[in-house]
């Protein structure tokens, strides 16, 4: 499938004149201090850097882009460098189609395919941390299609090895596949919206996994973990985003509301029917340089406990409230102060934390989507 897509892309390329494009280099440096560790990953306590990035982008003959992103994370316990993106993407195949091949961010949910340096909070919402390991990228091939309708309507699909979703290598060739769709439009002069629905099929494990082995590992509450900790055969996601700016001029003022809901069934490695989670976030940029925001989220999960020699599964719940104030002295810099409050039911590691987060970008950066 991958080879076919590449062949198609090459065929299209050869029909066009060669145009030389400049290599675009971008660097994002991220530095933070977090007062405490909190539950379900995210940033570790102390000083560190969570998502510093070196990205290279090269247009090839104006019809394909090659993109590579190397991401580094380090904190007081751990350091890690990994290749998060390395893909070829067509710019425009006939009929509103595009193909992506290589390692890339899966096109699911609202936040997954966006780069975390454009996030409004210092950590991804709970549901992303629980079900997608923060953000899900993998090796595979993706196709997207923009319908020729008046209202924006886009469909996309992807097939991946599945190796990057969990901590283990996938058992089957196509470990995961995805489907997603999104719609959107303007509401008068000041507002616009987008909604989406996505599905992730996870074939990397089998549902009866937990019965033959007792491999439910201790979660690494401190520090980050790359894999999704809570997985199931099916993950459903829905998202809704609404943005408002007076006259659509978001330089001075903007309100951004986002909500997502995730549902996981045929759960792997746990004796519960399903997991689910949601978040709601609101960010108000009240001036050219300042914005404030609040995010409320919850995940409903399950943990195994030993009770008088018996293993029992218990439903657990984690609720998280984040409040942030952010100052952007220039277009490329941002300083953010964030307070996070966690409430847990039968779950360890929940705490409250204050994070100070600074981010600066140099060089070229890809334009941001909606």
């Amino acid at each position, binding site marked *: 499938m991958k080879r*076919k*897509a590449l062949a*198609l892309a090459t065929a299209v390329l050869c029909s*066009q*004149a060669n*145009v030389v494009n400049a290599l675009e*280099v971008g660097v994002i440096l991220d530095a933070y201090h977090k007062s405490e560790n909190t539950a379900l990953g995210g940033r570790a306590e102390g000083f560190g850097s969570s998502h510093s990035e070196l990205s290279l982008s090269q*247009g090839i*003959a*104006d*019809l394909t882009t090659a993109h590579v992103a190397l991401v580094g994370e380090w904190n007081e316990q751990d350091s890690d460098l990994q290749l998060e993106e390395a893909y070829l*993407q067509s*710019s*425009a*195949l*006939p*009929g*509103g*189609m*595009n*193909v992506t091949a290589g390692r890339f961010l899966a096109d699911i949910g609202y936040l997954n395919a966006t780069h975390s340096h454009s996030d409004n909070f210092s950590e991804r919402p709970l549901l992303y941390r629980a079900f997608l390991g923060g953000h899900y990228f993998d090796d595979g091939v993706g196709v*997207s*299609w*923009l319908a*020729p*309708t*008046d*209202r*924006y309507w*886009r469909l996309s699909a992807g097939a991946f090895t599945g190796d990057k979703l969990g901590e283990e290598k996938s058992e089957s060739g196509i470990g995961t596949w995805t489907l997603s769709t*999104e*719609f*959107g*439009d*303007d509401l008068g002069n000041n507002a*616009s*919206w987008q909604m989406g629905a996505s599905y992730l099929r996870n074939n990397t494990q089998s549902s009866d996994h937990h019965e033959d082995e007792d491999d439910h590992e201790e979660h690494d509450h401190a520090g980050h973990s790359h894999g999704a900790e809570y997985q199931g055969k099916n993950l459903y996601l829905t998202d809704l985003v609404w*943005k408002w*700016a007076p*006259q*659509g*001029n*978001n*330089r*001075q003022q903007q309100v951004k509301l986002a909500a997502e809901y995730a549902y996981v069934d045929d759960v792997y490695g746990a004796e519960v029917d399903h997991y689910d989670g949601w978040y709601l976030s609101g960010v108000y940029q009240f001036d*050219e*340089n300042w914005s404030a925001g609040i995010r409320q989220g919850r995940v409903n999960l399950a943990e195994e406990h030993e009770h008088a020699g018996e293993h029992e599964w218990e439903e657990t719940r984690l609720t998280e409230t984040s409040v942030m104030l952010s100052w952007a*002295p*220039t*277009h*490329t*810099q941002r300083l953010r102060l964030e307070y996070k409050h966690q409430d847990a039911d039968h779950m360890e590691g929940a705490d409250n934390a204050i994070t100070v987060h600074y981010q*600066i970008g*140099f*060089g070229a950066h*890809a*334009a*941001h*989507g*909606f």
Partner: protein
Amino acid sequence: MLRMVSKLLAFSLLALVNTAQAITIFTCEPEWAALSMELAPGAKVFSATHVYQDPHYIEARPSLISKIAKADLVICSGAGLESGWLPALQKRAANRKVVNGADGMLYLSQFIKTIEKHKTKFFSTEHVHPAGNPHFHLDPDRVSKLAPVISQRLQIIDSGSRLIYQQALAKWQKNWQQSLQQWQQQAAQLKGQPVVVQHTSFSYLINWIGMDAIADLEPEPGVPPTMAHAQSLIADARQEQPVAILTNWYQNDRAARWMSDKTGVKHLNLPATVDLKGDINNLQRLFDHLLAQLQEAQ
């Protein structure tokens, strides 16, 4: 399979386009929409931005994606002005006619010389355009050079209507020449006069007239005015008594109003481009308005 589906889709799209009579033009800025309406009579023209929006900061909204997906021709200023959003629209829209390098993608900055080019260093936090100031629609001479560029591009992508485009251009050029003479007379009276600006939005107009921008309320290009910086300009403004402090409709004019209060210099809030929904809906009217306002402030 994939190839078959995409071919099928391409054919059905082609059928859709062929039945449409006029071409569809998507412009990044409203000035090029206004110009296109005059140079391509009958074309469907859509502007991604309007006079109340800062074209540097635009959301790559779903509605813009579906609009650019249907365009036969996209006309933008270029020079980095739209780099924060246009590539996202092009990528999502997957419209082969308007990818970079295609005949349907026209960056006007490639056909004129820009001013205020900055050498940018990689590790710099400044927000400047290395390709120069992209607000060149405010120079009547550069606009004269760009109208034939747009017309020629229209003739390439829609060769069947070549004659219509040639006639429209001739008509436009005749009107523009007449207006130019009037503007030159007005400019002669403003020549050498000082003004205070906020951002480089009006640089081309100021240069064309021969006025002198003695101060910029932005401490650095693209960085919003600060009180400390405005304070530091007060003495100069009092001494040189500029004609006006210029801001445009999409800017926050707090610092300009404050400075006007402190110095007695008139604050002029002017449209930086055409207002497609208002009276100043083409470039002729825009220059008429801008020059009249500057003269009045004198």
